[in-house]
């Protein structure tokens, strides 16, 4: 446990609130000074209090909630602005319909009070291995648009994660939006294990997205959270599931391969071998859930 310096105020910093995207990129051009971006702030505020970050400049995205927010669907792509909150994601009918795994994960982030302000972009940029939005996005084949003064680039979700609490963004770059390809036939789901039901980081989280046709799984992805330095695509599991017979036997095989894909550590939440076992159990549970839900359609 880290200790909090309750009585001492957070050390001072310059505070900038850009009112346009060009102004934002000028604010982020800090000439070697340490900059932190505050979106929802639910991770940054803890880090400021713990003194794990001590920025010279804090850039507040609060005035760019319109420019960097919103959830819409066009041209077969579901686009979620980085400033969309987990409450907005949890209650959005497009996400419930086309990205159900993300909807379920969003509903389990933190608490009502956290979900009210915590943003999707912040969850990705903080780059926790346990970031609950990441496995659903990886399973859904989402990409992330990063923006900077020199333009945009689109990267896979995994590229935003460089290591535990270390993102792959370049200096002066922000998460602008997330794009999820829409497939009306696809099923997706998310589940997790944690030491209690609410207000806790996931010990292990798993997301699966797939389609089913003529008794076979189509393009499938199995993604895992909190079992590697970053959220990962379970490659062996993904390959084994794609094109396989839609059956309990496949669920057994894929879920044990998912455990092989994981490289968990032992920490305060769980031991490595228990986490590996959870990967199998949770992956199997999701695939069995898909089989019964698709059969009931």
């Amino acid at each position, binding site marked *: 446990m880290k200790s909090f310096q309750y009585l001492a105020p957070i050390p*001072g910093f*310059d*505070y900038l*609130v850009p009112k346009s995207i060009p102004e934002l990129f000028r604010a982020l051009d800090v000439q070697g000074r340490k900059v932190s971006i505050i979106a929802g702030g639910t991770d940054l*505020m803890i880090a400021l*209090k713990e003194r794990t970050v001590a920025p010279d400049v*804090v850039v507040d995205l609060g005035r760019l909630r319109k420019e960097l927010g919103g959830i819409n669907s066009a041209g077969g792509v579901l686009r979620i602005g980085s400033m969309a909150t987990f409450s907005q994601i949890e209650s959005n009918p497009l996400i419930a319909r086309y990205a159900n795994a993300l909807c379920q994960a969003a509903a389990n982030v933190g*608490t009502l*009070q956290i979900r009210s302000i915590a943003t999707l972009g912040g969850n990705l940029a903080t780059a926790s291995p346990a970031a609950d939005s990441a496995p659903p996005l990886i399973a859904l084949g989402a990409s992330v648009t990063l923006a900077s003064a020199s333009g945009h680039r689109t990267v896979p979700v995994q590229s935003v994660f460089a290591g535990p609490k270390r993102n792959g963004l370049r200096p002066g770059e922000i998460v602008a939006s997330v794009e999820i390809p829409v497939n009306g036939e696809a099923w997706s789901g998310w589940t997790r294990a944690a030491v209690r039901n609410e207000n806790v980081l996931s010990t292990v989280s798993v997301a699966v997205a797939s389609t089913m046709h003529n008794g076979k799984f189509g393009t499938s992805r199995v993604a895992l959270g909190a079992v590697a330095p970053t959220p990962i695509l379970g490659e062996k599991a993904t390959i084994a599931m794609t094109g396989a017979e839609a059956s309990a036997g496949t669920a057994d095989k894929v879920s044990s391969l998912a455990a092989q894909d994981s490289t968990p550590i032992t920490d305060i939440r769980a031991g490595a071998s228990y986490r590996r076992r959870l990967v199998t159990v949770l992956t199997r549970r999701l695939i069995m859930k898909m089989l019964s839900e698709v059969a009931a359609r």
Partner: protein
Amino acid sequence: MRGKIKVSFTLNGEARTEEMQPNQTLCDFLHDEAGTTSVKKGCDTGECGACTVLLDDMPVTSCLVLAPQIDGRDVVTTEGLGTKSAPHPVQRAFVEQDAVQCGYCIPGMIVTLSWIYEHLPGASDAEIKRLMSGNLCRCTGYIQQIEALKSARKSA
């Protein structure tokens, strides 16, 4: 800029402009400077919910918000939900149902439950429990508070 910055917001319906230190939490600002002493600092880490306020009509833990983040926004504390003579239905029900023991968690609890009352009148017991999981009470154990919400609904 380092040093105080000017922030305009509404607090409990009243338009205000204040000079604020950017490194101050909204919780500390509301309790220590704005006069809304119902806002309690418990854990100071977004776990306990004692400092819950409405920010643009969403419940937030004010210890996880920097004070100047409320610029241009609307803040409501328990003081803004009702008065002694005209309490919010949830405030009245807390009294009637003895849903208070030591009282420290109550302002935040009332903010969350009044939000559920206003926005999710059909929320099931399970949904109410899920939504109030960010408000910890170490005395009464939640049942009286859920009963208070339900009794407020009935007398609506």
